[in-house]
């Protein structure tokens, strides 16, 4: 627990001292409103936060609190209407769609709640998908994917299609795909939502291990207390605003 607090203070101090480039992610008064005809739904109402490299943090909150919107904006899948969004030293608000796509391909990894994989590709082909798009030669691709598969317990499943894998195995393949490009940041939108608790814990073990061994920043959105418990920092959203941002285990609040 104290360790968690210490890490959190260290993170905040780095943020206070450093400039934009020291943060993996920085948002300044980010706002996002969805419009459906005449109806406006504010999803984010001026969110400001900093995420240091190597963090393992959860974004929690009830449904409609803005978790997915926040993740989408950080991941360049959506644009904020207002404010600044900095990822890896780049202002996403100023990037074109093409540049955002390149950013997602080269610097970010994604793990979604479900249907992460292309059903017609094998586990190996799904995992190396982003490497292929980057033009990495086949030997290097295979080597990297196989190493990761070994690391996260997927060895022997390379030629299976998603339909032949369990839910937990599919999510691990998604994690492998997210990791294989050695991204700075992995965004996971409720990755354990469709898994039983044992499988969810197992997946968390994998991601924590990768975070420790590779220093990759992991940002989750979650309802799952197990995920929140395992994270070293959690940001609680309510009604599109940050309700709390702490590195303290005792700050786990029910969604």
């Amino acid at each position, binding site marked *: 627990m104290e360790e968690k607090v210490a890490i959190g203070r260290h993170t905040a101090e780095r943020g206070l001292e450093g400039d934009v480039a020291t943060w993996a992610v920085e948002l300044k008064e980010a706002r996002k409103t969805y419009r459906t005809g005449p109806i406006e739904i504010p999803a984010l109402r001026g969110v400001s936060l900093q995420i240091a490299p190597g963090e393992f943090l959860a974004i929690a909150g009830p449904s409609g609190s803005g978790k*997915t919107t926040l993740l*989408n904006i950080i*991941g360049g*899948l*959506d644009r904020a209407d207002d404010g600044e969004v900095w990822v890896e030293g780049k202002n996403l608000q100023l990037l074109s*769609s*093409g540049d955002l*796509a*390149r950013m*997602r*391909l*080269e610097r970010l990894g*994604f793990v*979604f*709640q*479900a*249907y*992460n994989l*292309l*059903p*017609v*590709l094998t586990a190996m*082909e799904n995992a190396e*998908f*982003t490497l*292929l*798009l980057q*033009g990495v030669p*086949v030997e290097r691709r295979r080597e990297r994917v196989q190493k990761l598969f070994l690391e996260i317990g997927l060895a022997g499943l390379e030629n299976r299609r998603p339909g032949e894998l369990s839910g937990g195995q599919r999510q691990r393949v998604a994690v492998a*795909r997210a990791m294989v490009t050695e991204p700075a940041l992995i965004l996971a939108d409720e990755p354990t939502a469709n898994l039983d608790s044992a499988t969810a814990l197992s997946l968390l073990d994998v991601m924590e291990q990768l975070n420790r061994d590779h220093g990759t920043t992991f940002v989750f959105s979650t309802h799952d207390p197990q995920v929140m418990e395992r994270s070293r920092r959690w940001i609680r959203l309510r009604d599109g605003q940050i309700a709390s941002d702490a590195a303290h285990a005792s700050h786990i609040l029910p969604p």
Partner: protein
Amino acid sequence: MSAVLLLVKIGWRNLWRNPRGTLLTALALGLGLALLLISLGLLDGLHEKMVGDGVRFGTGHVVLQAKGYQDTGSQDLLLPARVVSMTEEFLHTEPMKHVVRGMSPRLLASGLLSSAANAAGVGIIGVLPQEERAVSLIPLRIVEGTNLSDDKRPGVVIGAELARKLEVKVGAKVVLMSQTVQQPGTEATVAGEGGMQSTLLRVSGIFRTGVQAIDAHIIHLPLPVAQALLGVPDRVTQVAILLEREGDSPMVARDLRKQLAGEPVEVLPWRESMPRLVQIFRLDQAFNYIMNGVVLAMVGLGILNTILMRVLERRYEFGLCKALGLRPLQLAGMIIGESLALTTISLALGLVLGSSAHYYISTFGLDLHWLFKSGAPSAFVFDPIIYSRLSLSRIATSVSIVFLTATVISFYPALKAARTELPDALKVF
């Protein structure tokens, strides 16, 4: 494997996620191509038949006649014997003799044919039986009796409809009356020149062509008998020339025209001497192309429907691809690739079906007699058994058009896929 190959692999495998659906779609589209090929094969076969039969029931591939005859049809416009001799001599030289199958001098006139029971207006064609047999189909369509013989006996060959109208059979006597021809500069050797002449004939044969206008109207009699009847002992109306290949018509017409330069004649290829046939040809072709356009539109809509449905069903998948960094152009390319793969399978099926049907119809023919129970209308000059004729260029053109249509049509679903919007597409409902 490059990104392009990856996308090709994804596109190909996506086709087989639902093999039955893909095969059914391919079969439906393939049937479209097969219909197209069958239609074109029948069209080309029909036109080949129309031309082939038309020229052999009509004036041949090339016709030589007196200048002005094509416009007026006046039976006073005749060719002198020397022109016929020059023509015959020319057509026996190199290279003409390899190109020409036969030539037949004819004397044409109108008259009245009477039997004991009835009378009918007729078109008289005076012919040399052996020459006429090499050019015309009428001598080959004798159903009762025999064709004219070369011994100049005053026989006559009439159509089955005419025989029925006159209530005559083979061996019956008929009287043929016609107006003699006024020839400037000739001696008035025939009694009643410029007036009516008649001659008694015996029906030697009855023919049936299936063409109403011919079977009810045309009679053949020996050329010397016709010449005597009309008072033109050494003249003919036209020389009908039949060639080995229809394509040589313009060349032969041109060369014969040159040979007879200075003579008051007109030398016409069949497209000019039988404009009605050409009109039918063109109308038929236009209608066929419209029908083919409809088939093509249906094929195109089929492809569009299938691919568009697949795109709409896979919105999440495309969102995922875009989220991972796939560019819109790459996504569009994947969809177009899928569409082309489906089209290729369809084309292969269509070629198999279409070729099989073409083989059957080209070998056994399509009998359309049931359509013309009372004989072919006068507008048609053909025997209603059609054989399919499909050239390689026709097949290549049809396949190319279908392929191009499918490619163009696939742009819309490809654009739709490329425009998949993030993050909406990633919402799991």
